[in-house]
């Protein structure tokens, strides 16, 4: 290419400054043609996570309810608020609680940031769990998505572990005894239980070593693992051909909400099948730009406004400073482990290790046991009645145990009436 003959003196360079800077960063125009819409997936760093086109069903709120996106956005909020909190928090048994008081008292937006972090954390555990239910009930773990389901189970465990490690950091009575109970449950594992507890806590009891190790896990190791698993999880979605959907779908009643476009430049079209498919079969896909992006944006706004409102209205708890001589009665684990604690009160091994272990094993094995491909992409498909029923039962049982552990257990773990 020959250079143009335009004058390139300093004056003209100065005049063209803004244009040149803008153009050097944003080299492609805001899409206005189909070609441009398609190319957003490979001309923008952040957007290349999107396929060029997505199936219509993927964007249906009633299908996914945006739970996966919500979990991701909650994680983003957690990382941002978490890093901000890191500027003021010190993982020392003598300083941690005072720092929490400072965050509450003197740090600008300290209360608010901490609330956001706390409620996003609880929210993420709940949303991740609901997301898992959604995936199960729509049969989206079946072939070819088995490994993605495995990744999801791992993501669930890492999320729980992240929440657990973060729970200790305020170093108040709530934190200390919850983690004491939680790690005691872990110690019930046969043979390796005590060893694992020792390595986790760095000592025989919860103390400075445990606080330091939990801090490192919480801010560095587990987020890195989570991000890695999330990246593979999203990659897998793309490779599996996008989200699951029913096989055949009647023509939609209305095209409202979908931006209709003339030409179709689907990458998958180039890769997977012959051109002739285009236009010959009902095309259920829509351009990612702007439809998927709008959906994501909407879910993000929904998530963050919910978190903002909740953070404004409710303060994260901070109880008395740690008093090793004074266990509260009852001492309760974080809510997502209360189901376990309830079960432990019947049998230490089965409640703490046996049943949870079995549950995780079953979850991991489900896609390899349930091989039928009927009913994928629909909620509560009749073809999957057995699987759905079993899963729903387990879910409800878990919720019941958590509810009992939360509201119906009092001093000495005796049954109490909460009202």
């Amino acid at each position, binding site marked *: 290419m020959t250079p143009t003959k335009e004058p390139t003196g300093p004056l003209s360079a100065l005049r063209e400054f803004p244009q040149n800077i803008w153009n050097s960063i944003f080299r492609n125009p805001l899409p206005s043609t189909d070609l441009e819409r398609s190319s957003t997936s490979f001309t923008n760093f952040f957007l290349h996570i999107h396929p060029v086109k997505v199936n219509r069903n993927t964007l249906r709120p009633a299908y996914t309810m945006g739970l996966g996106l919500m979990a991701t956005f909650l994680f983003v909020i957690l990382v941002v608020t978490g890093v901000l909190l890191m500027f003021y928090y010190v993982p020392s048994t003598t300083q941690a609680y005072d720092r929490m008081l400072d965050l509450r008292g003197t740090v600008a937006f300290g209360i608010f940031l901490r609330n956001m972090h706390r409620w996003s954390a609880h929210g993420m555990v709940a949303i991740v769990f609901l997301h898992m239910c959604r995936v199960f009930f729509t049969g989206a773990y079946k072939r070819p998505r088995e490994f993605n389901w495995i990744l999801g189970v791992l993501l669930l465990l890492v999320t729980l572990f992240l929440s657990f490690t973060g729970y200790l950091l305020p170093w108040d009575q709530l934190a200390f005894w919850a983690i004491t109970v939680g790690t005691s449950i872990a110690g019930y594992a046969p043979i390796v239980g005590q060893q694992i507890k020792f390595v986790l806590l760095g000592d025989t009891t919860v103390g400075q070593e445990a606080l330091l190790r939990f801090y490192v896990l919480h801010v560095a190791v587990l987020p890195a693992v989570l991000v890695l698993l999330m990246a593979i999880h999203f990659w897998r979605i793309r490779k599996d051909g996008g989200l699951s959907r029913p096989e055949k779908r009647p023509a939609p009643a209305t095209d409202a909400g979908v931006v209709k476009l003339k030409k179709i430049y689907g990458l998958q079209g180039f890769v997977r099948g012959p051109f002739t498919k285009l236009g010959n079969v009902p095309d259920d896909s829509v351009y990612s730009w702007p439809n998927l992006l709008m959906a994501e944006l909407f879910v993000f706004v929904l998530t963050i406004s919910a978190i903002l409102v909740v953070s404004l209205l409710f303060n994260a708890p901070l109880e008395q400073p740690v008093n090793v*001589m004074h266990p509260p009665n009852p001492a309760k684990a974080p809510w997502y482990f209360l189901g376990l604690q309830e079960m432990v009160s019947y049998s230490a091994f089965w409640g703490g290790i046996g049943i949870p272990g079995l549950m995780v094993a079953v979850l991991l094995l489900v896609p390899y046991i349930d091989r039928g491909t009927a009913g994928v992409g629909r909620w509560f498909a009749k073809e999957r009645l057995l699987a759905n029923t079993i899963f729903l039962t387990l879910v409800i049982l878990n919720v019941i145990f958590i509810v009992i552990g939360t509201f119906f257990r009092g001093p000495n773990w005796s049954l109490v009436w909460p009202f």
Partner: protein
Amino acid sequence: MTVAPPSHDKPAASAEAAMPRRRMLAWLSGFGLFASALLAVVSDWLFFKPRVTYGPSARFAIGKPDDFPPGTRIARDVERVCIVREGNKIAAISTTCTHLGCIVGIADTGFACPCHGSHYDQDGNVTGGPAPKPLPWFQVSLAPNGDIVIDKNAPVDPGTYLTV
């Protein structure tokens, strides 16, 4: 390092001679790296397992036998242990309640926990309250300089005594 250029008259033969050598080198490299990775993994486990902890030591001296007259039960709250002496036999029973970790006090009938009402008999067996397990007994030994040494990392069967 120089690679000898393959001789032009016998390319096939030298290519075949290179194969076992190549395979061996590949195997050596693989072995070296894999074994290193294995060592690294084992080292990680060693790294994470603490070799010292900073709390009070689990093994400590508690005094001389003469400090515990026969027929007495003396509780040491700091060390969370009760020294029982019957005649010339000494034992150490934990005073950490097995329910949620409070310090139990000596009662007429044995031990009683002020926090949630657990009761134990003279030997530490549970007689009431929410405690799930009996109070453990610890190994008692005699140090060369005459001190009684308790090892809380070494639980022993209830009824095990040290004869002094």
